[in-house]
Structures are given as C-alpha cells and as structure tokens.
C-alpha cells in the first residue's frame, strides 16, 4: 500500500490548466522530491493534496484511504502535515506558542473555552520536546518577531513534526536560507525517522538531490519524468525542460 496515491488529478483556473492528469505514488518511508520550473504547478499540487484546493477531477488516497472528499482541516488528523514556501507563522506569539498551536490542533482540547492553555503541562512538555528536536528549545519563549529567518524555517518544520505526521509535505524548506542554515535544516531533515514519508518541493538541487530517493519532474502541470534520482538526472527530457527555454 502506498503512503500517497495521486490519481489523474486535474485542476484549472478559468482556462489555465495548472494540473493535468497528474498520477504518482509515494511508497511508505520514501523521500520524494518534486521539481519543475517556475509555474510548473508544484505548489498547486500540494494545495490539492492538502485539500486547500478542490480538484476538478481525480482522486487522492492517504495510506489506501480515499481522502479526495475529506475537508482540508480533517486531513492533519489523518496524519498529513505541511510547511509553507512563504512562512506563515503567528507573528505576535512566542515560538513555544506557535508549536503549541500545532499540537493543540489535533486534540479535542482545542474546543475547550474554559481551561488555561499555559497550565496544560502535557501540552507544554510536548511543545518543548518538539522544539528540542529542531534545536530551538533554548529560545522557546522568544517572541517570533525577534527570531531570524533561519529560525522561523525551523519553527515551520517543528510545527509540522510536532503533529507526528505519517506524510510530511515540505514546500521549499531551504528557500531563502544561507549556506550554514541550509546545512542545519538538511541535518534536521535527515533525523526524521523512516515512519514519516516525505514529499518535498525544492529548487535548491545540491541539497535536495542528495536527500531525495525518487524524483518527479513537473512541467506545465504534467508529470514529465519520474524515477530514481539517477534516472531523472540522466533523462534527456529533464535537460530539455530545464535548458530548453
């Protein structure tokens, strides 16, 4: 059974076909890289998988369960987590609060209007633990506004990991990072255990290629090439897509 099955997915905005008949499968534990030039429809594909966009046709299955009609806010409860290419965090709050919100999102406690959130020992401990995993435990109480860009990238990942996902979708986790910060994030991604399947969009080939086991190349919303790292790199169509213009 695949971790993620995307079958014949289509989406268009007006007359613009941004996703055309996209079909692929990701095996459990796999590290999949999705590449393609700007406008290839990579982020749209993520938004379709997470349900933020509704496909015109096609289906999506998570570990064999059809989730095409599942509302997007239910999907994290089924073990799907994502990060954003453009950082979307809670700017007025501390790092700890950001991660706490991620944890809270999956518990029924999120509906509770009566208890004091700061006094929920278990929640706070879990949040600290999630921050330890990404090396931010020391600055847990720091307001997000006072953190560096690299730290925010790690908060993004910490929030996704805190939800203990089975499938993790990373949208350009290296975007905008310095060389050193990139190494930090790379090492962080390496520590993620194999029971988490990862699908990653990335432009930065030197870090991403090393991480990926299989690669899917998208172009104008279509899957052009799919295969192992070596196969895709060697394929003439890859060269054509990237150098043809």
């Amino acid at each position: 059974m695949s971790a993620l099955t995307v079958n014949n997915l289509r989406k268009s905005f007006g007359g613009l076909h941004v996703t055309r008949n996209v079909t692929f499968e990701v095996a459990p534990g796999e590290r999949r890289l999705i590449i393609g030039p700007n406008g290839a429809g990579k982020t749209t594909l993520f938004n379709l998988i997470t349900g933020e966009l509704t496909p015109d046709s096609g289906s999506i299955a998570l570990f064999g369960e059809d989730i095409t009609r599942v509302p997007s806010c239910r999907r994290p409860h089924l073990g799907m987590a994502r990060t954003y290419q453009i950082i979307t965090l809670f700017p007025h709050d501390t790092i700890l609060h950001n991660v706490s919100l991620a944890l809270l999102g999956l518990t029924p406690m999120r509906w509770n209007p009566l208890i004091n959130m700061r006094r929920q020992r278990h929640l706070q401990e879990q949040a600290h633990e999630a921050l330890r995993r990404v090396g931010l435990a020391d600055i847990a109480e720091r307001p997000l506004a006072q953190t560096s860009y690299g730290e925010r990238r790690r908060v993004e990942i910490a929030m996704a990991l805190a939800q203990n996902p089975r499938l993790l979708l990373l949208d350009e986790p290296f975007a905008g990072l310095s060389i050193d910060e990139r190494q930090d994030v790379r090492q962080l991604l390496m520590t993620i255990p194999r029971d988490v399947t990862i699908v990653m969009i990335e432009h930065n080939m030197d870090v991403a290629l090393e991480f990926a086991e299989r690669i899917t190349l998208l172009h104008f919303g279509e899957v052009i090439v799919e295969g192992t790292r070596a196969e895709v790199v060697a394929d003439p169509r890859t060269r054509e897509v990237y150098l043809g213009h």
Partner: protein
Amino acid sequence: MRRHQIALLAAAVALVTLPYWMSGVYYINVASQILFFAVFALGLNIIAGYGGLVSLGHAALFGISAYVVGYLLQHGFGHASAILGALLAGLAATAVYAALALRATGIGFIMITLALGEILWGLAYRWISVTNGDNGINLHGRPQPFGIDINSATAFYYATLIVFVAAVAAVAVFVRSPLGAALMGTRDQPRRMNALGYHVWAIRFWACMFSGLLTSVAGILFVYYTQFISPQTLALTSSAEVLLMVIAGGAGTLLGPIVGAGLVVVVKSVVSGFIERWNFLLGAIFVAIVILMPEGLVPGTVRLWRRAWQGKNGTSP
C-alpha cells in the same frame, strides 16, 4: 504580577464603593451605563478584536434582545421569562447573523453585517404592529432578582456591576483558553490554522455566539436601565459607537473595550449636556483614532509606559 494584583484590587474597591464617593443619582447612572456598554464592547471585542471580524451590525443583536424583553413584558410575561426569551432570541439571531456573515471575512464581513444590521433596524422601524415603530416600547419597572428591589439607581448599579464582573471573568478565561488561542490564530493565519487541523469556520461561529451572548446580556441590562427601546438603538450609529469603544480602547485587549466604553459614555454625556453635535464628534474621534492611534489607547499607553520604564532602568527588551 504583584503590581497587577494591586491595580485589580484598587479597581475592585473603587467600583464597589462607587455609590458612596460618587454622590448623585446622575453620576451613578453614568457609571451603570459605562458598565453595561462595557459588557457590549467586550462582546464585540471577542470577534472584532480577537477574531479579526469587524461587525458593523452588532447594535441589531443588542436591540433584538432589548425588544424581546419589551415585547414579552408588554404581552403579560414575567421578568424571568422575558429575560430568558431575550437571551434565546439573541442567541438565535446571532446564529443566523453569523451563518450569513461568515460567508465572508474581512471587508465582506463588514458589508454583510452592515447590511444585516440595517435590515433589522428597518424592521424595527417599519414593523409597527410588533415594535410600535418609531414610538418604541416602554417598560414598567425592573425585575427583582432574589427578591431584591433594583429600581433605585444604586441598586441597579450593583446588579449591573455583578453582571459586568461575570462578563469580564468569562472573557478573561476564554482568552487564555485553547479555544481563545485558536480564535486568535484564525485572526492571524487562517490558512495555517486550517492546515493544522482547526475548523476555522466553526471556531469563528462559536466566537460569534459568545459575542452574541454578551451582547444580549448587555441589551437586557440596557432596556431595564432606560425602560425604553426604539429603533434608534439598532441604528448604524449605535453599532459604530460600540465599535469605537473597542477600537479606541484597544481591540484585542481585555481592558481596552472597558476603557473605551468609559471614554465614549463620558464624552457623550458631557458633550450632549452642552451641544447636540454628538454624531459629528463621534465621526471625528473615529477618523482621528483610526489614522493617529490605530492600536487604541490601552496598547498605545502601555507601549509608551514600557518604553519610559525601560529607559529609566536601562534594560533592553
């Protein structure tokens, strides 16, 4: 924290002893008005401040509860059923209001709430067989909770104070709760909240219901205070007044709407004693605050105070 507690204690003592040092029925009545308008503003602040959903029709929800009290009393019901009926009607109206307005957020939410508020105002104005039109509905007397007569200004003040304290406590608890944190999350990053597993619409809906409950409670206090309800209470100016309380004091803070209510009620009482141009002043204050101090008085003052205090001690943030 200790300074906080001292300030809280001082405020509590001042409020409880107010009728003794603030002599004169007029001033005690002004204090009562501040308190129930503060409850109203606290209610609006739940969605406008913590939820980022600016409602311009809240006076209609406030007015519906007041009308239901008036209507039921007029038709021979007792105070208990009038109050209960008003709360239920207020909540039911809020549910419909929220279901419609939450089709949109941001500017769309403002437009829909404004339209709904105007429609309910028009209904109050024209549906004469029920609302008595422009003449409004008069009440005769106040209820006697637990057999206590609250017809005097002082007694009504204490009844209002009790409700006010309960409302403040409820909001304080809510703001620290997971649901409160979730609401603020939907204000700042709705998309991310959805991706984290929160049902953004439902969170906003329940926030509206809480807001509607406080608004109804305030509407009931209002109608028992003035002993009169007319379409003017539902007008856009009334919605704007309460929004001004929230924004002037500081949206998204606990203290802000209370300070804002005090400010607006006092300015209005003082000004209307001299001239009739309250609406002009209301508009001017609105424009000035939005352009010059958009964060509101409470956060603005806190910021200035902190800066001064830290400057003196030479500590960095």
